[in-house]
């Protein structure tokens, strides 16, 4: 098992570095800076850190006003509160005017664990991807997180990065260079393609390794840029492997699976299966228990691959 590293800590450190390089970078948080790790930045650059208190809608508006005045605001809280709590503010204050605000949220998905339903963000990707002009990234490990934060700062326009609470095994080495809008082939294979995001990338790799023992060779794509999605990589995978499985820590509706299916149906129809949460809210539990209960493990991916293969002509 690869070394496990905190994606949130990677975010905090990346922000700190950005703050040193670029004095227009400002950071906002809504009373969660110790959890989102924006506290690193706050300690070093108190004059450029804006604690907004437990008032997410106001935080979005302040960030928008700052972006309209030439700043590069990074606003952070839990993924369940942004965009959910303040969807209309994100829509009208950031997305419509195309303002240069970076929303970096943590505790996305089920892996937040014991805090339960109110804290499990399983709709955020659907909401944020619905907004015209947003770029959306779900990093697969700490190294990709650092790269994603740099990419967000370099890009002009609304940006969303979703991180999770637990530490994640490294799927990349230090030499990894993230390319915005490009899926990464993590493993080659010709029988089926597993397209995954976030912590499901490691599960996809594990599933592919297990399936190989049964003589099933899976390609694994990390679709870390969810929007704009890498259509070329999807079409190529569909054409070459003729079966696709998506895997995400999100509701089945409106996330990675929906986005990939749209591309597949339009350009290269092939059988698909979806590893995601099925139209329900989850409960309290350990992250690993929840991933198992709601069908988000390597075994679920393996089953899905076999289902997709069975439908292949």
């Amino acid at each position: 098992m690869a070394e496990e590293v905190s994606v949130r800590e990677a975010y905090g450190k990346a922000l700190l570095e950005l703050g040193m390089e670029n004095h227009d970078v400002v950071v906002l948080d809504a009373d969660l800076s110790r959890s989102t790790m924006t506290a690193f930045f706050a300690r070093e650059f108190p004059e450029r850190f804006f604690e907004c208190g437990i008032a997410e809608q106001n935080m979005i508006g302040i960030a928008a006003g700052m972006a309209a005045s030439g700043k590069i605001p990074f606003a952070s809280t839990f993924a369940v509160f942004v965009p959910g709590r303040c969807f209309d503010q994100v829509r009208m204050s950031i997305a419509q005017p195309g303002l240069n605000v970076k929303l970096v949220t943590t505790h996305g998905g089920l892996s937040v664990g014991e805090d339960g339903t109110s804290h499990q963000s399983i709709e955020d990707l659907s909401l944020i991807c619905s907004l015209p002009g947003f770029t959306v990234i779900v990093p697969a490990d700490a190294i990709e997180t650092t790269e994603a934060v740099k990419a967000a700062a370099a890009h002009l326009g609304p940006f969303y990065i979703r991180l999770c609470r637990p530490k994640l095994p490294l799927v990349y080495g230090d030499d990894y260079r993230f390319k915005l809008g490009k899926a990464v082939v993590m493993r080659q294979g010709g029988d089926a393609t597993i397209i995954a995001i976030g912590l499901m990338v490691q599960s996809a790799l594990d599933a592919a390794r297990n399936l190989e023992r049964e003589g099933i060779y899976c390609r694994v794509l990390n679709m870390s840029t969810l929007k704009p999605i890498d259509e070329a990589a999807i079409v190529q995978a569909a054409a070459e492997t003729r079966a696709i499985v998506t895997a995400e820590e999100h509701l089945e509706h409106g996330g990675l699976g929906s986005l990939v299916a749209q591309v597949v149906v339009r350009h290269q129809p092939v059988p698909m299966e979806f590893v995601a949460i099925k139209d329900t809210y989850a409960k309290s539990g350990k992250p690993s228990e929840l991933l198992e209960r709601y069908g988000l493990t390597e075994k679920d991916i393996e089953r899905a691959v076999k289902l997709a293969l069975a439908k292949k002509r």
Partner: protein
Amino acid sequence: MVKKSLPEMGGSKSTSATSAEAEVFSLSASVAEMEAMAKKLRRHIITMIGKAGSGHPGGSLSAVEILTALYFKLMRHKPQDPHWEDRDRFILSKGHAAPLLYAVLAECGYFPVEELLTLRQLDSRLQGHTDRTITPGVEMSAGSLGQGLSFALGVALAGRLDGQDYRVYVLLGDGECNEGQVWEAAMAASHYSVDNLTAIVDNNGQQIDGWNCDVMSLDPFAAKWQAFGWRVIEVDGHSIPRLIAAFKEAQKVKGQPVVIIAHTVKGKGVSFMENNPDFHGTAPNTMEVEFALKELA
């Protein structure tokens, strides 16, 4: 990947070549000239909304003197260079009063006055509610009430961080103050002791479903702002000299934000629109336009 070209996205830093040459708008108008301008703006509002066949006359008419005082007497701005870095900012939070803002901007020279008649038409730069990406001089995309004070606070904090001396003005509706976000922003502005920000409430006493006191009571309104740490100035919102005095008083306040509660009449200047909730969001028909323009002659 298709990149949207968003010329204004980088924010307010002026890149336009005209920046150096563009004139700062002259603020030499007399009170009598401004009063005449207020009347002219009211005629524009009626004509525009009448022509468009939809829009919000009531809350546009009530704030005419407020914007006249700001744009013609108080704010440092360059109509030929709307992104001038040193400009004072006016943010219209009650975005449904867009016709008023458009009329003021046109009269200042941000775009041709004739363009006012394109209000709400397909491909017009004058959208039903403000859109900062296409209309010169419009600072915020508004229309969803409750968001402007937060946005203005962000602009004010950024200005302070950069050591810039511009002032930020934001106009709210009284009904708009039903929104919780307004009070989140009010709390934050005083927490950050922001004194380059002046909020104005167009306190015309009405919202859509009727009088504020019947829909959702705001009382005691001034005391609420005070309790949130704001300096409150109450003023007759239709007296240009009193408004100017109030704005000058606000400029002198240090260490806390100021709200000017402007007592106004919804539909002001047109007898049958005054205090008439039917004209919150309904356009006057041809006869009503004619009648109103006669009153405003």
